């Protein structure tokens, strides 16, 4: 179990208060961050279950206009403390999330949990790095993010531009999760599970036991084409296992704030299966990597946003993995 000074402080700070705020009582009135919005303006969030709030990022690539608001992030409010799950793609978005939390509750933010190392999920961490919050992730995330930190910062500062990138820095996880770990938030607990290589080699899911809501991180994409930065075989195997687990609803890393389980993951499974089968057949017939990238999985084109941006890269990654079989 993870216990941190922040958590203890949270326990002390709060006297009796309702378990959670009314389910629909609080919806931030602010709209999605617009260009020129004040720094740290609250992000729009929706309550998807009692005490669980999600901000839906927009499908897209990093740009000065979206300030890195291109993935979902959210938070879970317990009696004693708040746990944040992913923080958006810049300090500005992280600050917006923090402001949204403060519109809902003044309880301390005990933990920031990152579902994996990608910049659109971790670059908002800086907004929460005040010494009172523990940063939690898959035990392999520190290594993965560390190896990529320099590139991620260089690329994203360029894509976001000076204004939107301002204040952004990489905050490394301090609490490594191996297997599963439980965090008590006060009258509700969340269970973190570190997975084998799938979307990346450091994917983590978060289950809220009180409501049966599971944060899938980028193991679940909806609308936005999945991106492979780990293992297509591993991802398909993990999905097959997770499908057998029950969840009242799931939160994708990219897509609507909440979706039914396991139906939500059917399109992703279809896509990965198509790429995997197409690449395996092409390898068997002696095609090269470059030929393959032009022919495999094109039936999926109309089913996904950002297909042109990521599909060929996915095929390349799958090819480099599967040719060893």
């Amino acid at each position: 179990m993870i216990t941190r000074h922040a958590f203890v402080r949270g326990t002390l700070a709060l006297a009796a208060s309702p378990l959670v705020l009314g389910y629909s009582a609080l919806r931030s009135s602010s709209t999605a961050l617009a260009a020129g919005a004040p720094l740290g303006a609250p992000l729009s969030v929706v309550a998807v279950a009692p005490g669980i709030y999600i901000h839906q990022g927009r499908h897209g690539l990093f740009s000065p206009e979206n300030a890195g608001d291109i993935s979902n992030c959210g938070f879970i409010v317990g009696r004693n403390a708040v746990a944040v799950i992913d923080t958006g793609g810049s300090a500005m978005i992280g600050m917006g999330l923090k402001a949204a939390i403060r519109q809902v509750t003044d309880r301390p933010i005990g933990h920031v949990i990152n579902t994996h190392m990608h910049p659109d999920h971790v670059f908002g961490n800086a907004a929460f790095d005040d010494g009172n919050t523990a940063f939690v992730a898959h035990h392999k995330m520190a290594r993965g993010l560390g190896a990529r930190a320099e590139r991620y910062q260089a690329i994203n500062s360029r894509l976001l531009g000076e204004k939107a990138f301002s204040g952004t820095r990489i905050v490394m996880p301090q609490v490594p999760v191996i297997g599963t770990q439980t965090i008590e938030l006060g009258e509700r607990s969340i269970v973190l599970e570190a997975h084998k290589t799938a979307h990346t080699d450091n994917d983590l899911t978060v289950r809220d036991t009180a409501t049966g809501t599971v944060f899938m991180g980028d193991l679940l994409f909806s609308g936005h084409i999945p991106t492979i930065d780990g293992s297509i075989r591993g991802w398909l195997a993990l999905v097959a296992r997770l499908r057998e687990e029950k969840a009242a609803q799931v939160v994708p890393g990219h897509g609507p704030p909440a979706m039914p389980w396991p139906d939500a993951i059917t399109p992703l499974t279809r896509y990965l299966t198509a790429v995997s089968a197409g690449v395996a057949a092409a390898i068997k017939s002696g095609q090269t990597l470059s030929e393959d990238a032009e022919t495999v999985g094109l039936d999926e084109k109309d089913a996904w946003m950002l297909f042109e941006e990521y599909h060929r890269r996915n095929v390349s990654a799958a090819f480099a993995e599967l040719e060893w079989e």
Partner: protein
Amino acid sequence: MSTRSQRGASPIGLSGLVASAITTIAALALPGMPAAFAQAKMTVAAPEGNAALDFDPWPGIRKDLFASRDITDEATTLSLEAPVRAEDAAIVPLTIRIPKAIAGDVKKLTLVIDKNPAPIAGVFTFGAGAGLGDRVISTRVRVDMYTNIRAIMETSDGKLHMVTKYVKAAGGCSAPALKDADEALAALGKMQLKTRAAPNQSAAMREGQVMIKHPNYSGMQMNQLTGLYIPAKYVQQLDVTRDGEIVFQLEGGISLSEDPNIRFTYGDGGTGVLEVTAKDTDGSVFKARVAPSGS
């Protein structure tokens, strides 16, 4: 004078060549590199800002590799296939095709990636086992910034022929190898060697493919646990023979992608036994052998 001795006399790296902070790192991180692939200590301050993008390193590379010899630009005798825009800068696929009309005369093929910190990606020296049909070589390289990629072929009459492609890709040299770091380390040294009928060719030619699980560390990737750059460690020599006859010998460098992967044509004949010996900069030797099925 051979390419090797010319390079030995004048190590690549060069006055005025290249241009980024990363280059300096590479220079520091590769003490054991053969001169041919190492960066000599930079003698000129790196150009600022966009100068790096505008700077043309080719004249310096050309001089070091080929002195003042003539190089004919060829679009007809030689072809180089490269993506205009690479999907993954760490694995940019390249295919070089040499038509059979001249294939038998080709001694050497040099791949140059102008703006990479170590521009010479590889030098193939062909032997009799390469055969007389259309010669096709495919491999994957790292590309560090938008750059020209060149294939320069030397024929037995001493003439040089070149084809050039511009590729948009960036960051391939410092990209961390290893999507799954643990799996990659566990598999280091694993090899696959395949042989199949060469597509669109007469029965006299076959196609082989060699794959080696090797991180091919560029010296520009950081080990997060130590905060230090991982020293370069890469496959520097790879020899392929058929029935003991040399198909090609490859001198590799850090611009070849991790898990080096080379597809090549070769002349069929004899028992058809294909053998590969590869050696990395740590002196580790990797061997594989395959015979066509049925033989």
